[in-house]
C-alpha cells in the first residue's frame, strides 16, 4: 500500500466480510473534516451501541442544532427502511386497508395531490419515499453543513408522519415491531429524539412507554 502504515483508512474494501463492514477505530468528531462529519459521527455512535440513546443524541459542542436534527432524521428514515422491509412481508393491502394505529384516527397519505386513504403498507412506503425526496431536496436542504431555519421547520411534519409507521407496526404487527425494536432500538431513540428537541407534541406520541408496560393516554391532536 502506498499510504503510510500509521494512517487508518476507514474504508469498506470489496471482499470484506459482513462482520468487518465499517469496523474501524472510531474517529473523534473534531478530526472529521468531511462535509458529512455529522452523519459519520452519528453512525459511528450508533454502531458502537444502538441502545445508548444518551450517547447517540448527545450533540457535540458547537454543533449547529438544525444540522444535528436533520442528520438524525435522515438516519431514522434510513433505518426505518428495515421496518418497512419487514412490514412488506406481513402488512398486506387486503388486511390493513387503511393506515391506522388506534381506532381513533385514519391517516391520509400526504404523498398525493389530494391526500388519500392508502393501505398501510403504501402509506409506509410513500411516506418514506416522500421523506427521502424532501430530505434530499436541493431546494430545502442544499447543504448538509448549514440549514435554513425555514427548512428546519419542515422536519416536524416528517417526524409526525414517520411516527405513524411505528405506531401502526406497534398496534397491528406487534411481533415485527418487537423484533425490530430489539435489534435497533429505533422507536425508543426516535421518541427520545422528538421529545428532547420538542419536535412533535407529546400528546401525539401514542405508543406506551417501551421500557415499562405502563400505557400513556391515547389522546391525539
Amino acid at each position: 500500500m502506498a499510504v503510510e502504515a500509521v494512517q487508518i483508512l476507514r474504508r469498506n474494501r470489496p471482499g470484506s466480510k459482513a462482520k468487518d463492514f465499517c469496523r474501524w477505530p472510531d474517529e473523534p468528531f473534531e478530526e472529521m473534516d468531511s462535509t458529512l462529519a455529522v452523519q459519520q459521527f452519528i453512525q459511528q455512535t450508533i454502531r458502537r451501541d444502538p441502545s445508548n440513546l444518551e450517547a447517540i443524541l448527545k450533540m457535540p459542542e458547537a454543533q449547529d442544532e438544525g444540522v444535528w436534527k436533520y442528520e438524525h432524521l435522515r438516519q431514522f428514515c434510513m433505518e426505518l427502511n428495515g421496518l418497512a422491509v419487514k412490514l412488506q412481508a406481513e402488512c398486506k393491502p387486503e388486511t390493513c386497508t387503511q393506515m391506522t394505529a388506534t381506532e381513533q384516527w385514519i391517516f391520509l397519505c400526504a404523498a398525493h395531490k389530494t391526500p388519500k386513504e392508502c393501505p398501510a403498507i403504501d402509506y409506509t412506503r410513500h411516506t418514506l419515499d416522500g421523506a427521502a425526496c424532501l430530505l434530499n431536496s436541493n431546494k430545502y436542504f442544499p447543504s448538509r453543513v448549514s440549514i435554513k431555519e425555514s427548512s428546519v421547520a419542515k422536519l416536524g411534519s416528517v417526524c409526525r408522519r414517520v411516527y405513524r409507521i411505528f405506531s401502526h407496526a406497534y398496534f397491528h404487527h406487534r411481533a415485527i415491531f418487537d423484533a425490530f425494536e430489539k435489534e435497533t432500538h429505533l422507536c425508543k431513540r426516535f421518541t427520545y429524539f422528538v421529545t428532547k428537541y420538542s419536535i412533535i407534541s407529546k400528546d401525539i406520541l401514542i405508543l406506551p412507554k417501551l421500557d415499562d408496560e405502563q400505557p400513556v393516554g391515547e389522546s391525539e391532536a
Partner: protein
Amino acid sequence: MKIPTAMDDSSVSHHNGGQVGSQIGVSVNNKQNDEPSQSVQYSIPGILHFIQHEWARFELERSQWEVDRAEFEARIAFLQGERKGQENLKNDLVRRIKMLEYALKQERAKFHKLKYGVELQQGDVRPPPEEPPAEPEPAERAQWKQGRQLIKQYLQEIGYTDTILDVRSNRVRALLGLNNEEVENPNYRNYDKQQHDRCDYSMNHMVRKYDYDTGKEPRKSGVSAGGGYNEEGLSVQETAAVFANFEFLTNQEMDMDEIDDLDAKQSHHPPGKQGEEVDHEAEEVLNELNLLTEREADGGGQGDEYPVGSGSSGGSAVAAGAGAGAGEADEEPLALGELAQLTVSNEPEAYDVASANKESFRKTWNAKYTLRSHFDGVRALAFHPTEPALVTASEDHTLKLWNLQRTVPAKKSAGLDVEPLYTFRAHTAPVLCLAMGAPRSEECFSGGLDGTIRVWNLPPPTADPYDPYDPAVQGAVLRDHTDAVWSLSSAHGRLLSASADGTVRLWAPRAARPLLSTLRADESPTAPAPAAADFADAASRAAVVYRDGTLLLYDLETGQPVLRVACDSPAHRVRSHPTLPLLVTAHEDRHIRFWDGVSGRCAHTMVAHLDAVTGLALDPNGLFLLSGSHDCSVRLWNLDTKTCVQEITAHRKKFDESILDVAFHPLRPYIASAGADGLAKVFV
C-alpha cells in the same frame, strides 16, 4: 357645353361677384314660382355667373377630395408597407429558427455518430412538426435579439420610419411574450439547450474565423459618430454570428447521408457556390447577410475577438471603445450578458467544429443530472440496457430506479435533479453490487451485505413513485452465499457473483435450481476472498480478482482456473474488454493494470489516480475506460493510447471513501458515478 363658355368668361365673374350674389338670392326666391316667370327673370350674365360660381365650388371640392384620396392612398401604402415589413420579419425569424434547428440536428447527428458510429434516429429527438417554434431558451433569446437588431438595421436602411419600427418591435415583443408562455416538454428543452450550447460554442469558433476573413477585406465606410458607430459594431458582430452559423452549416464535411437532401447538397458544395442548390430561404438570408457584411465590414476594425467569442469582457470593450449611444447601450449588455453566460458554461468543452472530424473529435463530458434520494453512500449503479434510466444501490439498504427523462430543474440551472421512480426494499443490510439483466428482460440483480442476491422485475419507466406497492417487483432470492456479496456480473441470462465467503458462483437466476456452479480458488478457510468478478471471452470464462491481488481466469465449462497471475496490490475491480482478450483491474495502490487474457502477461500498468481506484467501466465499443477513485475524481481514458482524456471531480468524501462505482450506458451517451456522499451523478 356651358362650361367652356364659363371658362372663357372667367374674368367676368370676378368683376360681378356682388351681382352674382344678388342674382342667386333672386333665383332662390323664384324657385317657388312657376317656370315661365322664372325664365323671364334670368339674364345671360347672371346665369353665367351662377354657373361660374358653381363650377368654382365643384372644383374646390374636387381638389379637396383629391387631397383626401392621396392621403388615404398614402395611408394604405403605409399600412401595406407595415404589413409587408411584418411578414418579412416573421419570415426571417422563422428562417432563423429553421437555421438553428437545422444546425442543431446536424450537430446532434454528428455527435451521435462520432460517439457511437451509429446514425441517430432523428425521430427520437425532434419535436412534433406542428409544434410552434417557440423560443423560450435564454440562449435562443440571445439569437432572437440579434435577429431583431439585424432586421431593424436592415429596415432602417430601406427607409422605414421609426414609428413603424416601434410599432413592429412592440408587436414582435407581444408575439414573443406569448410564445414564452407556452409550455414545452421540459426534457426536450433541456436536451435542446445542451445541444444548443454546443452549437453556440462551435459558432464562436467560426466567428473568429470569419472575422479573420473579413479583416482582409477593404474597409468601405467611415466610422460614424456616437451611437451610430456602436450600432454598427453591434450589427456586424451579430451578422458575424449568424454568418458563422451558415459557414458552420456548410463546413460540415461529415457524411450525413441520413439526414435529408439539404444536408447532402450543402456538404458537397463550397459555401460560396451553393446558390441554386441550397434551400431557397437559406440562400436569401445568406445574400442579405453578405450585403450587410460587405457594407459594414468596417466594424471588423474592432479586432478579431468579437464579444460573441470572448464573453462579457469583449462586450464592455465595444461599449467603452465606441462611446455608446444611450439607447443602444441599454440593450447591448443584456444580449451580451446572455451570450457571456453561454460561453462561460461551455468553457470546459474542448470542442472545435472547424477541425472536427472523426480522428480529432473529442467529446467532453459534463455533469447534467444529480440523483439525490439515498440516505447513505451509493455503492453501485447500472444503466438500463436501452432506456435513459438507471438503478442505484445504496448502503441505506435500498435500490432506486431513476428515469433521466423525468427531471426537476435545479435552482442553479447548471444541472437537473432527478427524483427516483421506484424504491426497491428487501435487503436487510447495505446493498453492495448491482447488475442489469439482458435487454428486454426488464430485470436487475442486486447483492448485499446480508449475503443475498435478489432478482428484481423493473417497473415500467412510466411508474409513479407513489403507486400502490406491487409485490411482483420482487423476484427470486438467491441465498447460497454465506457472506457479503460484493460483485455481480450478468451476461446471456447468467449471473456471476463474488462473495466474501470465498466463492464465486455462477447462476441461472430464473431457473428452478438457479445455482449452476461454485468456483473456489482454494479450499482453505483462510484463502483470500474474491473482490470482483466479470464474464470474459463471450461469457465462456470468468475473470476474478482476489483481495490479495491475484487474478484468476476460470473456464466456466469445467469450473477450473485456466490462468493465474499474481499481483502485489489488492484489487477492487476487474472488467473484461468487450471485444479483445484484455482484462483491466483496479487496485488499491492507485494503479490500473491491463492483462493479456490469453498469455496472462501484464500489457500495461499505470498510476491512474491519487488514491485507490475503486470503479472501472469500459464503453460498449471498447475504446474508452472510465475509472473512479477515492481521490474524488472520475477519469476517462483512451484505451488505445492509455492517456487520460478527461478528469471530473465528482463526489465528496465520507470517512475515507469517495467514488464507489462508475458506469457507461450501453447505448446512449451517458456516464455515471456513484459516491459515498449518497449521490449519483450522470454526465452527458
